[in-house]
């Protein structure tokens, strides 16, 4: 296990609790899916093309996207072909399995993180996905785990972004580094890393300005932040988290592609999953870019930022009442 020992899976009892919370967040999603699956399966003893068609629409409406949906359906079809007497009630299990398989990383993630010492986490994403809020919550979470945490406000562009992060730092009583608005974000990151090293912090969380991934200059700015960190502390940043809004559609794939190219993203955070949005695009991202989802945001409260568990996520999507 690597860095995310920090966020390590909880005891079984706590896990059940997580599952419940996830269920609540995904309630809308599940009702929708189950309602439709139940309706389409009524009176059918065999899975036919109609059912597969209907499943297709269910997956697409969950934002899985056409390609990923086709892949899931294809897996299902294989199973159906192998077993012509597959009952509709068994379909759900197959579907769950198909999605899970897509989300599983193909290889073990490389463990480049030093067992001890400072861990640097860089947080990136487009505008308005919830980067600053995620960092605020993460900071508090780590602090509660007894770690010495520092937040760095490298979003020097958006009005009041620094103040916003400062409020979070004050709330959780963690260290905070900022310069003035409009200063070079790489310089902020550099200063923060120096201070985190000298103060022997355990975790440094760096906030960056939201940027659309097709803005070349802004993406280069991110690459620069990465380079500056790497130079000062080889191996840093140990984790680059791309924050995605659950309501985002297929464009999230392009976001993953471009941010990965610029900063070597190592994991995803899926926010705002407590609404009606399903966030299915992460299935496509996880399978295409081999990027694990680290956290999901299921509400505004601090405890609503959850360590992601694919099993819970998918179970929750397809669970029968």
């Amino acid at each position, binding site marked *: 296990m690597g860095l995310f020992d920090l966020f390590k899976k909880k005891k079984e009892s706590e896990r059940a609790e997580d599952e419940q919370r996830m269920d609540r967040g995904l309630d809308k999603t599940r009702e929708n899916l189950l309602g439709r699956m139940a309706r389409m399966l009524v009176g059918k003893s065999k899975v036919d093309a109609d059912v597969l068609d209907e499943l297709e629409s269910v997956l697409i409406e969950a934002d899985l996207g056409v390609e990923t949906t086709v892949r899931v359906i294809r897996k299902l079809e294989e199973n159906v072909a192998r077993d012509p007497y597959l009952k509709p009630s068994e379909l759900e299990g197959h579907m769950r399995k198909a999605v899970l398989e897509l989300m599983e990383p193909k290889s073990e993630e490389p463990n480049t993180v030093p067992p001890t010492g400072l861990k640097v986490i860089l947080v990136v994403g*487009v505008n308005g996905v919830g980067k600053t809020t995620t960092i605020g919550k993460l900071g508090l979470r780590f602090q509660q785990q007894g770690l010495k945490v520092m937040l760095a406000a490298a979003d020097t*562009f958006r*009005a009041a972004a620094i103040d916003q992060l400062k409020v979070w730092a004050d709330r959780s009583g963690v260290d905070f580094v900022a310069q003035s608005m409009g200063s070079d974000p790489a310089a902020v990151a550099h200063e923060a890393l120096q201070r985190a090293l000298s103060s022997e912090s355990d975790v440094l969380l760096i906030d960056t300005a939201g940027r659309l991934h097709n803005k070349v200059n802004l993406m280069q700015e991110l690459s620069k932040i990465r380079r500056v960190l790497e130079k000062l502390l080889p191996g840093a940043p140990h984790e680059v988290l791309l924050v995605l809004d659950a309501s*985002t559609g297929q464009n999230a794939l392009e976001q993953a592609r471009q941010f990965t190219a610029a900063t070597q993203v190592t994991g995803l955070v899926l926010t705002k999953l407590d609404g009606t949005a399903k966030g299915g695009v992460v299935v496509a991202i996880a399978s295409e870019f081999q990027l694990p989802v680290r956290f999901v945001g299921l509400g505004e409260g601090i405890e609503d930022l959850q360590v992601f568990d694919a099993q819970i996520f998918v179970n929750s999507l397809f669970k029968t009442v």
Partner: protein
Amino acid sequence: MFEKLSERLEGAFHLLKGRGQITEINVAETLKEVRRALVEADVSYKVAKDFVDRVKEQALGQKVITSLQPGQLMIKIVRDEMARMMGGQAAELNLKGQPAIVLVAGLQGSGKTTFSGKLASFLKRKRSQKVLLAACDVYRPAAIDQLKILGEQVGVEVFSVPGSTDPVHIATQAVAHAKAKGFSTLIVDTAGRLAVDAEMMDEIVRLHRELKPSETLFVVDSMTGQDAVNTAKAFHDAIAYDGVVLTKLDGDTRGGAALSIRSVVDKPIKFVGTGEKSDALDVFYPDRMADRILGMGDVVSLVERAQEQFDAEQARALSKKIATNKFGFDDFLAQIQQIKKMGSMKDLMGMIPGVGKAVKDLDISDDAFKHIEAMIHSMTPQERQNPSLINGSRRKRIAAGSGTGINEVNKLIKQFEDMSKMMKKMQGGGAKQLASMMGRR
């Protein structure tokens, strides 16, 4: 991303090649691709389905002019219908009232505060309004500071009640302040909220009821996926907004949410956000949005130009000539001139889906036809009518007269013969053959 889609559509077009009319059979494959394109552009699955079905009704039986393929015409019908759906109503803001009140609502992170700042600047500069901004997001840390900074940047006063946690209270105070100080427009920025958050939705309903805004705007991220229909509808049920603002369109999202929203609530898109600067606010162009959702490059403009330039009479004469083996270099020249009328080569190539990006940085000269024209001009009328006359010494003369070489003349004649043969087989795809022949040179 766009290219892949366009290529698939081209693939679908191939199936329709050579058909003169849009029929149930030849349209099915194209429509399937269109539907897929829409869904990949994040148009809601149901909306895409209904939309395509409706378009099909319109399209059946339409005659296809010979230089177009039914698939291309189909796309134009789709695009026009889409633009019609998203456009229509006048998108001006209703600024009645003293002050006029604009209420801004939406999900978290959709860009309400940034939009409020931009709108304040727009109304001040372009509509000569005396604008007051009210900061009613009491939840997100520093949201009020953010609006204050934006207000300062565009020179607009920002009203807030320090310490207050009641948005309705702040808003009503802001109205009183605006009245007392003679502000003509009050823009009320609110906190982001999820449509399933009953408490927060109740709050925006109370704000709406209390303020009776002349204009309520729903701000939505253009990258929104399938959920756009749910959210747009839930907010509309709650506050019956008057218009939609589509933000972050300077990204590369296809923006299918625009179509989805328009088809579940019949409210116009009044503004689009196109950047982080305070003046990056634009009115909404339904045509451009339709093109963007389809990811079509400008195939539609190409179709329109072809339609404009196409002379039906000339076409009939031409196809008769082909049928009777009388197609000569004069006709060839006429075709070249027709293509040239449609615009520069680079423009034309750029409009073809799948080619668009490839030629963007390429230097394509409009002289591509020059040598061919020169060679044809160096032929005698007899030679042009009857190319088989052109023997070795004539070829030498043509090469000298046109300033080209004998090789080029040979190549032209060979290509012309191939083309004549092909055209006789295809009957009517002349312009296209010519284009592909040019591409090979």
